[in-house]
């Protein structure tokens, strides 16, 4: 998922990142809300830069995202969860969503679980896909999902290398809008047609 291979330019950390108290969730409500907002912006831009579509909380804690080694400050699991929960809330603009995996929620609770980071929401992805298809004149053409994500035609698009699951969700939005149809020919080769 985390295809951070092609990080050509270094990520520009926000000024808050070098501010030690940023890694302690503030007790005062107003400060806290501003802090959550800053975290949300930071996480989104970080994930966008590294093309990360979902985070595993427990693994992410030791990555530079939540761990500033120069300051030796690290976000606690509890606080990270609070931030992501806030991002998933309407207040945070639904910029995250906890993935409820096959096993029951209890398992997730213990280890933090996985989270979608919506630096683009599925609806926004859907719009991008529609625009792309429209622009490249591929309406009515059957495209495979693999082709959309890995194909040469989309190499310069923002959704290149996108998470398959997220792509499916986004295409689901297109289908709901009546802009596309998904063919599942069984197994791997799924196709989609835009109209």
């Amino acid at each position, binding site marked *: 998922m985390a295809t951070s291979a092609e990080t050509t330019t270094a990520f520009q950390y*926000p*000024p*808050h990142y*070098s*501010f*030690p*108290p*940023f*890694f*302690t969730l*503030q*007790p*005062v409500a*107003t*400060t806290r*809300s*501003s*802090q959550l907002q*800053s975290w949300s912006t930071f996480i989104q831009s970080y994930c966008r830069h590294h093309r990360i579509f979902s985070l595993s909380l427990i693994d992410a804690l030791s990555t530079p995202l939540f761990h500033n080694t120069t*300051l*030796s*400050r*690290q976000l606690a699991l509890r606080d990270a969860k609070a931030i992501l929960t806030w991002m998933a809330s309407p207040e945070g603009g639904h910029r995250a969503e906890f993935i409820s995996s096959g096993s029951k929620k209890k398992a997730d609770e213990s280890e933090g679980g996985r989270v979608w980071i919506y630096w683009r929401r599925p609806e926004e992805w859907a719009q991008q896909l529609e625009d792309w298809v429209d622009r490249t004149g591929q309406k009515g053409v059957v495209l495979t999902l693999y082709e959309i994500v890995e194909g040469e035609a989309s190499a310069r698009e923002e959704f290149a290398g996108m998470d398959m699951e997220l792509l499916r969700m986004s295409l689901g939005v297109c289908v709901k809008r009546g802009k596309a149809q998904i063919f599942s020919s069984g197994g791997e080769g799924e196709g989609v047609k835009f109209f």
Partner: protein
Amino acid sequence: MDRRRTPGLSSLSSTRLQTHHYTNHGAKLRTNTAASLETQLSVFQSLVHNFALTHSKDIRANPAFRAEFARMCTALNIDFLASSYHRDGKPGAASKSSGSSSSSKSGESIWASLLGGSVNDFYFNLGVTIVDVCRATRAENGGLISLTDLRGHIARGRAIGSGMDVSDADIEQAVRALRPLGGAYGITTIGHRKLVRSVPKELNTDQATVLEACQVLGYVTVSMLCVNLDWGRPRAVAVVEDLLAESLVWVDCAAGEKEYWSPAFIGGAV
């Protein structure tokens, strides 16, 4: 001339005539000088006019240039910011500027008519931007923002292309221009640092002392305050708790003792 020594009564009348001539001549000289001064003034004014028009872009864009321009105007006793409040600040000015008929419109300053309001508006715009930034960052810094920070925010701008290059003096001027709107905005000095205050509150001496102490390392701890200021522990705790409640400091629990950081150090030198 030869009448000067005229004897008898006629000498009286000749003296009167003489004074009369002198007065006449004096008056004529005065009017001449006044007229020439007026011409000079109008020429100068049109020059300033032209200058301001040709360089209005520079005046807006270049802080050093703007400062020099402002200094020139101050030397000439023209306060272009104030002249928007008192339009009689420079008598005869409005009637002079030839081209723009809008100059005689009531309630408009000479600079507004000269520059299309760009210099005035510059400070008012800046004022609005300052209010914007202060409101946006209030939750983060409790309504106290250092001039340096503020300048950074303004330079970055909120929308693309809206960034402005301003100097500290510009900001102070703009904050002063906000004064008629009420007492909320002002400039306070804590330690060696100037801050724009956007909440109508006064810091008490203890709070000011703690904030000043924050500037040394970026943070304070309760025991630091106790040792260095000779305060009792309850007093130190009370002050930092107060500051914390007002978002003027952030707490960092990751270190051994709780550290209270000044938000002015966000992105600042640690």
